[in-house]
């Protein structure tokens, strides 16, 4: 018998609120070398970071927008109107009590401290550009686990941070990874020592509160040999009249035999451009698993990837995208096989509602010299209305003998008869649709941690309630 646990008490459906800005540090609108120096000064960056930022800015300015293959929507971003750094000017607090009142109110409304007490091993809360709170359970810290913001990471642990920073995702990987590299602020740095298995998830919560703003967090997670860690991130923003930009870079490094599970629950307001680069490196026998759920935003472009560098490394991407009216979810996965006997698995489910559009892009690469590599790709799309749209662009390059690849795709539609059947049982149209959608993602969601799947179900319900008139 299956019973439900209570949902995580973060009500992301109620993320649409904001408090007046009280930022002490503001880089102003527009992006130039002056902006970079302002950020580097405020953050007291070491010289190598300042230089890194300046080089990245050059790369960003040189690279064209990827409108030739992606969406013309990108042209709606006005880089001169965005503010690239905003912070309250206080240090990251270890104790919840010390967090400034107005910010505390925001996160309390979203349920953060409550959640930490309940089941998390550590929490970081980022408000606009900087982490305002970061805490790790004592027992986890005593095992040598490091969980801090990126600024503290690069300052206090340069011997671990620097060798891996920007190694999985080079600055010039794409225009937005270059942008992030130039102005990055916030995000998490995590190091798990050899053999340490962190039982409970570490969580970061990213909150945008300011208008005309870009959030550029940078996360680096290193799981040393034989260690295990699960990281969950959540994101919300209020709905402003002008577009907001969220452009993160997330790098994961799983050393020999390590396991990293990275879970994203995002519920952005419908005018956020969410352009994120996420990639993991898996050494011998290591595993990197992305669980990625994209709800909200105006345009999301995100293709979590795994480079399987060592023998028997495993990569996995399980993703759900929900494109509501006026939204475009352009998501997928990249699996780069770079050693023998590596295996990858991609399961992608997308739901398009109204005039929403979901695009799947997958890249699977197995070069000729490798042996016994396997990939499995499944992508399923569900269309709620006749006006909804879905596209699939799988790019699978498998060379050599003895490598196996499997690809399945399906498109289905919620039928009027199915909705009527459910309505006849007493469900409203919105309830019927949300149940259909939950059914569609059910076999995938079952593989997610319980707390996460319950929350996801609730988010889908909220999204469907808003979409049926």
């Amino acid at each position, binding site marked *: *018998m*299956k*019973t*439900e646990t209570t949902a995580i008490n973060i009500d992301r459906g109620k993320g649409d609120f904001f408090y007046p800005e009280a930022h002490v540090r503001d880089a102003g609108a527009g992006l130039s070398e002056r902006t970079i120096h302002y950020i580097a000064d405020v953050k007291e960056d070491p010289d190598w970071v300042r230089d890194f930022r300046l080089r990245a800015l050059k790369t960003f300015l040189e690279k064209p927008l990827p409108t030739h293959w992606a969406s013309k929507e990108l042209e709606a971003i006005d880089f001169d109107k965005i503010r690239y750094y905003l912070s309250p000017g206080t240090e990251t607090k270890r104790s919840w009590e010390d967090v400034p009142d107005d910010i505390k109110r925001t996160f309390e409304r979203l349920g953060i401290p409550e959640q930490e007490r309940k089941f998390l091993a550590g929490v970081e809360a980022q408000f606009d550009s900087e982490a305002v709170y970061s805490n790790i359970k004592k027992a986890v810290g005593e095992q040598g686990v490091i969980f801090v913001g990126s600024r503290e990471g690069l300052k206090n642990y340069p011997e671990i941070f620097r060798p891996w920073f920007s190694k999985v995702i080079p600055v010039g990987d794409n225009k937005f990874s270059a942008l992030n590299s130039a102005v990055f602020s916030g995000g998490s740095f995590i190091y798990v020592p050899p053999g340490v298995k962190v039982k409970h998830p570490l969580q970061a919560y990213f909150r945008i509160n300011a208008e005309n703003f870009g959030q550029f967090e940078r996360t680096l997670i290193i799981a040393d040999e034989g260690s295990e860690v699960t990281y969950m991130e959540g994101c919300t923003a209020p709905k402003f009249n002008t577009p907001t930009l969220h452009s993160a870079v997330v790098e994961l490094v799983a050393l020999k035999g390590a396991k990293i599970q990275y879970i994203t629950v995002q519920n952005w307001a419908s005018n956020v451009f969410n352009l994120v680069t996420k990639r993991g490196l898996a050494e011998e026998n290591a595993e990197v698993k992305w669980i990625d759920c994209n709800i909200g935003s105006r345009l999301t472009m995100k293709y979590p990837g795994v480079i399987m560098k060592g023998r028997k490394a495993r990569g996995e991407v399980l993703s759900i995208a929900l494109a509501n009216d006026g939204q475009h979810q352009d998501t997928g996965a990249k699996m780069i096989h770079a050693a023998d006997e590596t295996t990858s698995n991609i399961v992608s489910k997308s739901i398009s509602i109204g005039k929403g559009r979901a695009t799947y892009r997958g890249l699977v690469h197995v070069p000729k010299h490798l042996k016994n590599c396997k990939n499995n790709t499944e992508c399923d799309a569900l269309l709620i209305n006749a006006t909804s749209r879905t596209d699939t662009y799988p790019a699978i390059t498998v060379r050599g003998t003895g490598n196996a690849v499997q690809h399945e795709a399906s498109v*289905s539609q919620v*039928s*009027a*008869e*199915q909705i*009527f*059947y*459910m*309505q*006849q*049982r*007493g*469900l*409203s*149209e919105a*309830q*019927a649709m949300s*149940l*259909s959608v*939950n*059914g*569609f*993602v*059910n*076999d995938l969601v079952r593989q997610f941690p319980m707390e996460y799947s319950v929350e996801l179900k609730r988010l889908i319900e909220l999204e469907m309630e808003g979409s049926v008139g």
Partner: protein
Amino acid sequence: MNELRVENLRVAVADQEIVRGLTLTVPRGEVHALMGPNGSGKSTLAKVLAGHPDYRVIAGKIFMDGENLLELEADERARRGLFLAFQYPSEIPGVTIANFLRAALQARLPEGEELEATDYYARLYEKMELLGMDRSFTSRAVNEGFSGGEKKRAEILQMAMLEPKYAVLDETDSGLDIDALKTVAHGVNSLRGPNLGILLITHYQRLLNYIVPDHVHVMVGGRIVRSGRKELALELEERGYDWAREQAAEPVLTR
């Protein structure tokens, strides 16, 4: 007042009139069989009672316990106590029977009230036992990959759980072998009582050997042409629908 009453109902589908002036009353506590040949409009009537959006009511009224059903959406009718056992139930991929019924019951509770899980499962298992269904059934997706018999039993299970005031059973016997028919009939009979009115739509007399109706109506060409006691079904079986058709010219008898 405690009755499901159809008055002079006329229904069209894509400009063709299918139900042409039908009057019928099913009091709570009684079982009425509605028999008729293919194309007589039986299933259309069932769909219209339930509020299917594809059917256009041209004239007439439908009342449930005095309330005008035509003013209510399908889900509102259901929550007020109308149940339709579908002839061809829809599949709901990925949604288990347990979760589906739970959502349906939850939808009947006032806002803020939560269905009690333990009681719910106890009741679900009890009803399943009644219908000879294995418990593993609850974790299967609604109607997905079900045999004909399983689908019909699942419909009756839903009816048992939702406890409607009026139930319309649309060709619940079709596609069933004799054992499945007996199980389904046993289920329906166990739900009979003073609080439930049943409209049993069927093509064959066979079902009525197992669910004995209080009244029988014969529907031909969108109208009820004859009504009577259960013996009418036997007479019909013997003489065939042509006999009923001939009767259609005559004034409609009441029960």
